């Protein structure tokens, strides 16, 4: 990529990113402000609220800014965020940035495991299905994917918890570490042992998407002219997949998987709740149920940023690998149907 175009592209993406976060922050703020939940009542509790003096209530209202107009509150909050101050979490009684940091560190293991496992298994299943197209392995894999697409994540988590933790006792019942140990005593084995079952649940749900798309892509590749040529040269299926297939199939799969980060984060909210896993998803639920406005807003922004980075990585990777897309993008024709036509005709459709 020439330097100037690269610079322009980075600048565009940066601008897009800022605009997105800005828009998300406004939406989040308006939604949070529209809430019928009274932050004072929600946070001091019913009994304390009733017994509280009028002056104390006014003081708390002042503290939480319930009487300040929406725009002013937004500007205050936004200004603070620009200075790196995300506010204080009411539920965890700590700076929001610190809570998110800790929680994300716990979630990251889970998300990374689930993301990798679902990607690899889905990819292999997709290729296997395509190679055996219309035979029983293909039918089984397809049926499995369709069934999974209809399965509620949290229900699968419950079933896994019942079977593997309650009945078989292979895995702990929840949390990210053994109970009653100091931070220094927790080994890496403990951490992984606690993350396996939630990660497995997440990956099993995540497999469906990538498997079905890899299957389609592999079928396309197997029907292409160059595969026909390879077959006529006498190459076997395994060799064709390895030498001609993987290169064409793997990168779309990685891109798809990068773009699926949003799904995995969404799923992690549910799974963490079932397994009492103290990650970002559980924090989102706690914040939402407990009217922890600052934390909820920050989690929404943070997850939007993660999704954006995933999509951006997918975009860059695609351009990096497929010169046809890079060229059209540099010409400034990112929109419309032109890149697609190029790809379609190149596929020999």
């Amino acid at each position, binding site marked *: 990529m020439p330097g100037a175009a690269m610079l322009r592209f980075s600048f565009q993406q940066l601008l897009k990113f800022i605009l*997105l976060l800005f*828009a998300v922050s406004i*939406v989040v703020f308006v*939604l949070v402000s529209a*809430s*019928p939940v009274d932050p004072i009542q929600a946070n001091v509790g019913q009994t304390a609220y009733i017994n509280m003096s009028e002056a104390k209530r006014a003081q708390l209202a002042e503290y939480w800014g319930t009487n300040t107009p929406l725009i002013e509150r937004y500007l205050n909050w936004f200004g603070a965020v620009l200075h790196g101050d995300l506010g204080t979490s009411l539920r965890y009684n700590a700076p929001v940035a610190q809570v998110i940091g800790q929680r994300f560190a716990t979630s990251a293991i889970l998300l990374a495991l689930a993301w990798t496992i679902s990607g690899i298994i889905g990819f292999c299943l997709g290729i296997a299905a395509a190679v055996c197209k219309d035979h029983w392995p293909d039918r089984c894999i397809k*049926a499995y*994917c*369709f*069934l999974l*697409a*209809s*399965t*509620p*994540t*949290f*229900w699968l988590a*419950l*079933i896994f*918890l*019942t079977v593997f933790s*309650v*009945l078989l006792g292979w895995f702990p019942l929840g949390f990210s570490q053994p109970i009653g140990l100091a931070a220094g005593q927790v080994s890496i084995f403990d951490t992984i042992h606690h993350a396996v079952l939630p990660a497995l649940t997440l990956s099993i749900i995540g497999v469906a*998407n990538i498997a079905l798309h890899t299957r*389609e*892509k592999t079928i*396309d590749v197997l029907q292409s002219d160059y595969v026909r040529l390879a077959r006529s040269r006498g190459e076997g299926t395994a060799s064709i997949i390895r030498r001609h297939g993987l290169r064409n199939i793997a990168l779309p*799969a990685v*891109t*798809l998987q990068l*773009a699926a980060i*949003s*799904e995995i*984060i*969404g799923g992690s*909210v*549910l799974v963490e*709740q*079932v397994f009492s896993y103290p990650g970002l998803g559980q924090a*989102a*639920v706690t914040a*939402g149920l407990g009217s922890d406005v600052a934390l*909820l807003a920050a989690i*929404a922004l943070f*997850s*939007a940023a993660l*999704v*954006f980075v995933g*999509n951006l990585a997918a*975009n860059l990777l*695609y351009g990096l690998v497929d010169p046809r*897309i890079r060229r059209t993008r540099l010409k400034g024709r990112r*929109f*419309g149907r032109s*890149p*697609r036509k190029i*790809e*379609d005709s190149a*596929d020999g*459709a």
Partner: protein
Amino acid sequence: MVPKRRATAGMLNSKTLFNGHRAAGDYDTGMNILHQPLINNTGNRLRTLVTLTITSIILISIVIAGIYLYGTAMHTDFAAKSLGPSLTNPFGSDWMGRNMLIRTVAGLATSILVGLLAATVSAAIAFILGATAALGGKKADAAITWLIDLMLGVPHIVLLILISFAIGRGFWGITIGVALTHWPSLARVIRAEILQCQESNFVACARQLGRRPLQIARDHMLPYVFPQLLVGLILLFPHAILHEAALTFLGFGLSPEQPSIGIILSESMGHLSAGMWWLALFPGLALILVVLLFDRAGSLLRRLIDPYRSQE
């Protein structure tokens, strides 16, 4: 037909790259896997129609039975508490002696009704925004495309938590939340369909023959887009129902007095470690069954009204 389907196959991988339009019925939220037909070998339209009718009858009976049993679902019988599944009581009973089969059916009916309301509103939003994007000029298109990207940029559950937090919990909170978040994928499809229709030869021909834009919209575009909208609406149901259950499960949705699968499953959490596995297993399976039925109904209907797929 063949090139059209081929085009859809790999393109989802690059969904973030292109805003170019997609082939019919191709939703790209990453959840689109629900929407492909399960079987490809039924060529008989009559058989398709019969299957569709049976599927619809099952779904409608669940709703009617659920509404009828709504009161009974709350009935507690402490003499029969914590019973495992048996022939007379196939789903077992919970720690308050409530019949789980009745609770499940009532819960499914609630879910279907929430889904019906939310999906219909969502489809209406999708149609209005999709049509505006396609017909309203460049600025409207850019604005709506950006709005769609914005909606898809925040994880769905997080967005639902935010909206439910804003509106308040309960029936309306969850219905509005689900309605407001499920339109982007369908709006993209509608936009693409209208753009495709606009470029088609028959519309160009009508234009040359002097038909007015409104006449073209009524006579050519509406019949072209309506089937897609209808199928899209039905295929929104599974997502709507699953999200309703998920959100209720987390505690943002329906209140504990209302029978719903989300409540049943979240209440079962406290009793699973006591070995009452039936509290979670059967209601969940029933939910999956309903989702599959809706998905089946959607793909059957598409096969009936979409000429490109009628041969499948």
